């Protein structure tokens, strides 16, 4: 296997492990930057800033998330979204949408969100504690 390919695979593994987990925002940002260098997470789609998002639309769309992601509780397998760094959230959604990050439900749910909706969701979730 080509060394670059190995590096990409390793990075991919690390990204999957960390992008949504509870690490400090600096670490997460650094990870996302490194991932972007390897072309793993399509952060281009996350270029729009969460502050530009339509919070009301985000609130409506978020109702679909909270069927599984509890707002106020940290659970083992399904992570809490509220309070997540908006850039990490948007990068994760784009990665699921592009099927670069694995999870059949998340790929399906993110798969039908357009960029505006992803930004709206990020905007809404960033208003929560």
């Amino acid at each position, binding site marked *: 296997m080509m060394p670059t390919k190995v590096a990409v695979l390793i990075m991919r593994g690390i990204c999957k492990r960390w992008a949504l987990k509870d690490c400090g925002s600096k670490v997460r940002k650094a990870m996302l930057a490194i991932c972007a260098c390897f072309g793993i997470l399509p952060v281009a789609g996350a270029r729009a800033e969460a502050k530009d998002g339509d919070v009301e*639309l985000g609130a409506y769309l978020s109702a*679909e998330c909270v*069927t599984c992601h*509890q707002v106020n*509780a940290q659970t*083992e397998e399904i992570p809490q979204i509220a309070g997540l760094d908006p850039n990490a959230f948007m990068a994760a959604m784009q990665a699921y949408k592009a099927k670069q990050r694995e999870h*059949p439900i998340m790929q*399906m749910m993110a798969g039908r969100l357009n960029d505006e909706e992803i930004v709206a969701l990020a905007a809404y979730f960033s208003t929560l504690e």
Partner: protein
Amino acid sequence: MTWNRRKFLGAATGALSAPAVLAEGSGKPRVVVVGGGAGGGTVARYIAKDSDGAIDVTLIEPSQVYFSCFFSNLYIGGLKSIDEIGHTYGALAANYGINVIHDWAVAVDRVDKNVTLAGGQVLPYDKLILSPGIDFIEGSVPGWDLSVQTKMPHAYEAGSQSQLLRAQIENMPEGGVYAMVAPPNPYRCPPGPYERISMVAHVLKATNPTAKIVIADPKPKFSKMALFEDGWATHYPGLIDWIGEDFGGGDVSVDPDQMMLTIDGEEMAVDVCNVIPAMKAGRIAELAGVTDGRWAPVNSADMSSKTDPDVYVLGDACQQGDMPKSGFSANSQAKVCANAVRGSLTGSRIFPPRYANTCWSLIAVNDGVKVGATYEATEEKIARVDGFVSQVGEDANLRKTTYEESENWYAAITADMFH
């Protein structure tokens, strides 16, 4: 009601986004929700929460405690306690000011727009939302009716029925027979009977390994069939005998006094007989005159009844196109409905409908599988867009994760309904 009035109501469907229909003599528009389950609990909570007191929301539900059918099979399998699947309504009243009335709705007057309760109270509404779940079709299993549900439980409405079935299974004689009469399509929770079988097998394997499980099924195939059959062969070899339509599984009758089950002319003595009859919309939907056949047809844009634009039908009771009858579906429909109802009563923004469902099922301890899909509103129906299903042969870690996910989902959806 006159035909003219009906026609007038029908013609008003287009007025969905018109602002504020105020109830006479009241400062606020009134929404009455019938049924405090997956659809009703969610819709009441979302309308009250998002309108911030601008809409009066009344929830009518006879039970003080809602025992969810979801996870009731895990209760039967001994993996959850009855308290873990019971939920009360106090937080809906305390957190959102919802007027929770524990009573039955017994009549709906769609001309004068009010609902009558068993206790005699008459509640006016601007918008009525029905989410009464299911009722059973009488005579669908010859020999069975509701009067014998204590002998042959359905356990398809959770609570005392689930407790009875679990007790019957625990008390089966050594080497006894548990039989299930499975329902015809469409019915509440397509994988539900087969998850139930898995949980019964889980109990019997540990406590009564010479016992037998027989399923008489009127269908030629069932939801997640390959996954269940593979799981049954792995975890419970030789324990489960599924008799499908091709082998006469649809030709059944029961004799509750003798505890006999007849399948395709052949009589057998059984120790437990779990009869899950054919289903239809909860009776109040029929009484409200919004059903056509077994279910209530709805507009997929907002879940309003095709008969009356001021009545909405959610969850199992409605004819929901490609969506399965599940708690997840009812919850998803409730959110679309809440947004539309709030918009039409207060002028708030109405966003395009979007629907989703995921059903997890447990085959054995830590062996979870799932199936899911997204849906969109078309002129004709709620139509499937995309989906996935677990695969046969997945590794044990993934199956364990899938089960753990379902536990997280259960906590989240019940919080989304009741807190």
